[in-house]
């Protein structure tokens, strides 16, 4: 199979996954108890006529399959629907408004994950120091083990004034670069830990191989052997892991947004879930899942480009 047809197949699979995703989330939100229209009125009960009229306006009076199909028809035309409120807004506007903040968290988080994991792993390898090696391992284990909700909350409690901690960073979130520091630390700790552990053990395997001995004999420096030659040869499983763990990254982003009250897509989804505003939830989940699926696809194609064995077997590594 050529790289082109491998890539085409992977794109098709991603589209099917996205379609199934809309059904799962849409049906999931519709199944749980709670009525979005009733939720609008708070403690003042609406008249049955008002309820019926609003339900009809949002198509909630139809049978469920009809509701889903009409949502899907809209979606294919690029229309994410409108919010359920007294002043309905297009979902794309609402999600779009909160997307930049989330995109910064995802983008910078991913970048820091890669650089931190690479840096720490190489550091743990090439200095002939037991202390550095042990220290990086313990830090990686701690970062992997600590639930992100706990890290994020502990950091917020210690380093913001919100909870009588040190007044080092602003809380609640005000959009300044300072306000991103703690959320990103919590996010990167959770993301980079497992990558360091995996990359480290792959690198150690590679460094035992004869090809490393050849590189040493060729007179390359230790740093170059570890950071370039061996790192490239060990990258396959790490890329596969990164691609498969993007859902994990997105869950982390939502949690961090919720702990630091960041007005991003994650908080929007959580709020809309509480109001049972189906269109917003599905729209938000779709947008962030597109990140995950596209990322997974890119990772698979990159892995196939790096390692011809994968595309010859015709399937991504599992």
């Amino acid at each position, binding site marked *: 199979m050529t790289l082109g047809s491998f890539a085409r197949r992977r794109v098709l699979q991603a589209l099917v996954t996205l379609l199934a995703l809309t059904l799962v989330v849409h049906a999931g939100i519709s199944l749980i108890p709670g009525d979005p229209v009733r939720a609008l009125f708070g403690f003042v009960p609406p008249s049955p006529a008002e309820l019926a009229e609003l339900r009809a306006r949002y198509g909630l009076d139809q049978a469920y399959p009809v509701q889903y199909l009409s949502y899907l028809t809209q979606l294919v035309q690029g229309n994410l629907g409108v919010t359920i409120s007294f002043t309905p807004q297009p979902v794309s506007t609402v999600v779009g408004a909160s997307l930049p903040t989330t995109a910064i968290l995802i983008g910078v988080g991913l970048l820091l994950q890669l650089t931190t994991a690479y840096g720490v792993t190489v550091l743990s390898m090439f200095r002939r120091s037991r202390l550095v090696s042990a220290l990086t391992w313990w830090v990686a284990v701690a970062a992997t083990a*600590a*639930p992100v909700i706990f890290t994020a909350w502990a950091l917020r409690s210690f380093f913001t004034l919100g909870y009588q901690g040190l007044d080092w960073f602003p809380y609640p979130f005000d959009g300044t670069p300072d306000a991103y520091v703690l959320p990103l630390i919590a996010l990167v700790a959770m993301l980079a830990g497992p990558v360091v552990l995996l990359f480290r053990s792959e690198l*150690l395997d590679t460094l035992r191989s004869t090809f490393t001995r050849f590189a040493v004999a060729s007179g390359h420096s230790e740093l170059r052997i570890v950071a370039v030659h061996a790192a490239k040869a060990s990258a396959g499983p790490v890329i596969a892991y990164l691609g498969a763990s993007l859902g994990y990254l997105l869950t982390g982003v939502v*949690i961090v947004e919720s702990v630091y009250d960041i007005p991003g897509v994650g908080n929007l989804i959580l709020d809309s879930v509480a109001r049972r505003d189906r269109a917003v939830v599905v729209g938000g989940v779709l947008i962030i899942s597109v990140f995950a699926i596209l990322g997974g696809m890119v990772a698979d194609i990159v892995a196939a480009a790096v390692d011809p064995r994968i595309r010859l077997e015709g399937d991504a590594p599992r």
Partner: protein
Amino acid sequence: MRPRLQSAARARWVTRGAALVLVGAGFLAIFSEAPAGLDPSGCSLERSLVPPSFPAHVFGYDLQGCDLLVLTMAGTRNSLLVGVLATILALAVAIPVGTTAGFAGGWVDGLVGRLVDLVTALPIILIGLVVLSGLDDRGVLLVAIVMAIAAWPIYTKVIRAATSRESEQAHVDAARALGASRSRLLVRHVMPGSIGSVIAVIPATIAFTIGAEALLSFLGAGLQLPDVSWGVLLAEAQRYIRQAPHLMLPGLFLLVVTGALVVVGEAARVRLPD
């Protein structure tokens, strides 16, 4: 000048220590009842939020004036139970599904592969949060089921790959040539070699599950009082952390146990063949 060769796992005593921690946690989970837990007689509002004192009450008291250390020890049971139950449920799905996919190949394999991809792409824990927050009566089993839904794809992937690899071994071909039936091939010749691969993944997944329980409870969608777990205690702590920072101490148990699980998982991953 060559890079120092070292083992990917830490020294043996670290793994042993971690295993010991897990045994201790298991012991706590089985034998630590919640005596002072929510039993009014063991708690006193006069001691509400009293900070830790050494050596008698190292964790101090919670809002109700219960000894926080006793509560934390009592919470071990539910926290570990969620992890273990979720693992059992996830394996109950993943072993048959993964084995079938890996052994049968073809469209069955393709279908399972897509399904696994779909579930991996979904933020399951968030969906779980949505569904659970709509329910009133959330027990350990319900929370464990949500975790199992999040965890089965990981196990399925690992088992599928191992089964597929094992099916191509010469000894399986030999058995087939001797006329072994499909079910005999699977049970006697393929599965003994493939099931072991999943063991290395279990500890890290339990750690993830314990953390996710804490997450759900922290956000008010997991276990709730009078059930005690580390997550429930941290959720309570969240409200009064300002007056009483020592309420964060149950997090220590959480960190030590998930840390020990990660250490044991690393050792298993490095030492067991995959």
